[in-house]
């Protein structure tokens, strides 16, 4: 089945990102298709490559990036939510006069329309948040 995932909280502070990750992995293992994982609200904070979690803890950004690489997942960070939280790719950084970007590999920044599209095309949408 074609599934869509919405992640509304950032990593570590709430379990939502962990739950979404484990759910996505389990769905892929069962042979389902993940149409898209959309990161909204604080969920966009999953997409910064600057996190340095403790050595004995999981690294959620890496986990997402590796899962995306392995399964050709589409990880989309909402552009408006990302601007509020300081998540930028190269284009966004340039557009807003910032000297650096911080987007992680495997994530792309795009519009909220991509969430509506996910709701339209995926056969089920599963929401993880606070």
């Amino acid at each position: 089945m074609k599934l869509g995932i919405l992640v509304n909280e950032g990593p570590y502070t709430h379990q939502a990102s962990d739950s979404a990750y484990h759910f996505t992995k389990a769905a892929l293992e069962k042979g389902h298709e993940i149409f898209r994982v959309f990161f909204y609200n604080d969920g966009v904070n999953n997409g910064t490559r600057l996190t340095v979690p403790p050595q004995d803890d999981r690294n959620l950004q890496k986990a997402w990036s590796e899962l995306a690489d392995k399964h050709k997942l589409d990880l989309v960070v909402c552009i408006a939510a990302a601007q509020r939280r300081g998540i930028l790719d190269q284009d966004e950084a340039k557009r807003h006069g910032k000297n650096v970007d911080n987007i992680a590999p495997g994530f792309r920044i795009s519009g909220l329309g991509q969430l509506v599209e996910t709701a339209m095309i995926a056969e089920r949408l599963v929401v993880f948040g606070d």
Partner: protein
Amino acid sequence: MADVKPPEIASNIKKKLMYVNRKAPYGTIYALESLEVVLISAAFEQDVSLAFLDDGVYQLMKGQNTSGIGMKNFSPTFKALGDYEIKKLYVEKESLDERGLKPDDLMEISYEDEDEGFAKKPSVRIVNRSELTQIMAQQDVLLNF
């Protein structure tokens, strides 16, 4: 909203999308960011409705004045939803009652009915819990914020 682009691949899909709002405005951003998705979804010509229950009913309060907290008052946007062809705002009666609120405490939100000479009609419908449960059960997708 420069990034709105209706998807060509999905132009024949029309789903019933309901945005479920259960949180008060301003204390958290969920109400505002939910409304931002609602506005975007209008461009996709879906069958969109909004549910307000639990503390979500506070989003529709009349007379919100945010000048003292330095945040933007986004409540006028609800009044513009009719222009985006979003006409179905369901408010749960039990949620109002519990909070000591009456329908009169909420903003008047309306749309113009094309089929009846652009007559103004109310967008907000007060429904009881069992009605709302049934309406939710008719949706294709529930987006919760």
